[in-house]
């Protein structure tokens, strides 16, 4: 009670703000709960009950269409394969997040896991029917794009950031050119270029498939952005750190890997994760070159006349899925920061 009086009604302005917020909540929350939960139609093979007078949210759409939303146009009877691939990816994320799994075996797990996912998605052997990647879609595609995108873009971005600070003029010029050119262009136009222009420049007979081209464009794009984040971290490391490493006779790469990067990346965690999250959501832009990611699948599902008009429910669902992944990333980065902060904070001073 005292806390309420001090913090919510401490003075006139704060009292008015508190009342205004309470009033808004009173106006907004109950109707939303009424619509989303109480009046909602949960299961129905078609949209008729949803169109009835007084019906709330039409979650039946999600129930009916969830397979298409999650797996896109992947052949219906084989959809357990992308399903399993999604679970595998999530398992890999979780294992990578736990510090006690941070050992060389984790890299092997990733290689093995990704190989297995490739096998599951493509098939063609081990009794699995071949599925061309034009038909991959939904959440599986979104996760694959994000995972491979970040996995390649991040190391590349570190090289670019180091390159931009290099003493070698050619390396520096190339890095600056890449970063500035790519950063100055929207991702959409890069995807267009990758999908429309790139094939024109390739020699006759060489054909990189659409998914790979999209992925390449996204890696090129994300690397440029991440490079500037990493460079920010590098700039923040005091000059003396590099000098101390130099004075000990550590050659450039050892100095960079053992002294500079561990510190630079640690302080870059918040902006790095920020960029990762933005990148995860940017994967939805592959729609413009005709790939069926999570968001596109939803749009197509809504295109069916039987279910048209229930966009709010479908997009809320999409938002929830994106939010789950992004929020997990964000929380994890906060935990990691706190963990790495130990030892750096002046917690206990030596005597």
């Amino acid at each position, binding site marked *: 009670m005292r806390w309420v009086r001090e913090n919510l009604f401490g003075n006139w302005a704060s009292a008015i703000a508190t009342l205004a917020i309470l009033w808004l909540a009173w106006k907004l929350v109950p109707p939303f709960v009424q619509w989303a939960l109480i009046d909602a139609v949960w299961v129905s093979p078609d949209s008729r009950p949803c169109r009835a007078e007084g019906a709330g949210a039409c979650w039946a759409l999600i129930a009916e269409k969830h397979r298409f939303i999650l797996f896109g146009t992947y052949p219906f009877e084989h959809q357990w394969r992308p399903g399993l691939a999604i679970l595998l990816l999530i398992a890999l994320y979780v294992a990578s997040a736990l510090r006690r799994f941070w050992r060389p075996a984790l890299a092997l797990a990733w290689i093995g896991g990704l190989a297995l996912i490739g096998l599951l998605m493509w098939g063609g052997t081990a009794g699995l029917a071949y599925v061309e990647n034009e038909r991959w879609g939904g959440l599986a595609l979104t996760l694959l794009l994000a995972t491979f995108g970040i996995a390649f873009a991040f190391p590349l971005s570190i090289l670019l950031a180091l390159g931009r600070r290099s003493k070698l003029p050619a390396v520096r010029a190339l890095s600056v050119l890449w970063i500035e050119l790519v950063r100055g262009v929207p991702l959409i136009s890069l995807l267009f270029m990758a999908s429309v222009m790139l094939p024109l420049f390739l020699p006759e007979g060489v054909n990189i498939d659409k998914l790979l081209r999209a992925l390449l464009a996204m890696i090129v794009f994300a690397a440029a952005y991440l490079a500037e984040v990493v460079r920010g971290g590098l700039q923040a490391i005091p000059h003396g750190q590099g000098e*101390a490493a130099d004075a000990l006779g550590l050659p450039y790469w050892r100095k960079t890997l053992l002294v500079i990067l561990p510190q630079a990346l640690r302080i870059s965690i918040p902006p790095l994760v920020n960029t990762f999250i933005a990148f995860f959501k940017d994967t939805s832009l592959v729609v413009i070159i005709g790939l069926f990611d999570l968001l596109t699948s939803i749009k197509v599902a809504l295109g069916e006349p039987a279910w048209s008009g229930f966009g709010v429910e479908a997009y809320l669902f999409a938002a929830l899925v994106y939010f789950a992944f992004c929020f997990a990333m964000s929380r994890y980065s906060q935990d990691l920061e706190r963990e790495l902060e130990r030892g750096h904070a002046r917690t206990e001073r030596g005597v």
Partner: protein
Amino acid sequence: MADKPMIEMRAVGKWFGQFQVLKNVDLAVAQGEKIVLCGPSGSGKSTLVRLVNGLEPSQAGKVTVDGIELKNDPKTIEAVRSEVGMVFQSFNLFPHLTAMENLTLAPVWVRRLPKKDADALALQLLERVRIAEQAHKYPAQLSGGQQQRVAIARALAMKPKIMLFDEPTSALDPEMIKEVLDVMVELAAEGMTMVVVTHEMGFARTVADRVVFMDQGEIVESAAPKTFFEAPRTERARLFLSQILGH
């Protein structure tokens, strides 16, 4: 003194842009000799020390360290650096590593010492600077004096033939200066070749074989401490001494 000098500088010149920081500097340091470099700020003494391990390149003249002439290629610079230890004003310990890991990093990754041997060496050195009980703490958990002693031990872990000190006590609270100087005095007594930039004139008096006074990029005087403190030859040195000893 008939031996070849450990450090030899001949007609060394250096510019930062238009500004000449070192003018025609000649200096030879014999094995086991302890030199104290002093002079007003901006006189070029830090730059001079940093020439010895190639942290700054010279633009004129010749710098030779333990028979290796410093050229602008990574190989000779790395060769010289593994022979020369350096201690900085701001300690520059690696904050993401414990005291112990700070000491073992270079021996393991440059000298290729097995981890076990590097650990043993590190512990022995931490004991020598009287800080073994803090071996597993991070730099931020240590006081300034402790950090600087770890930094000295870190440089010693590479078994250098020469130790450079660039104002090692200037960033310390007064009560911590002594614990660092004590370590340096011991090191001197063991016969280490040392070049020390410092304003600790007590240290210069007791430890230095020679005091080198610099002003405006030039070596103005070079004499035994007794001579330098009691009978400086130049007006500039007299002025400098009166300023730092006057308070």
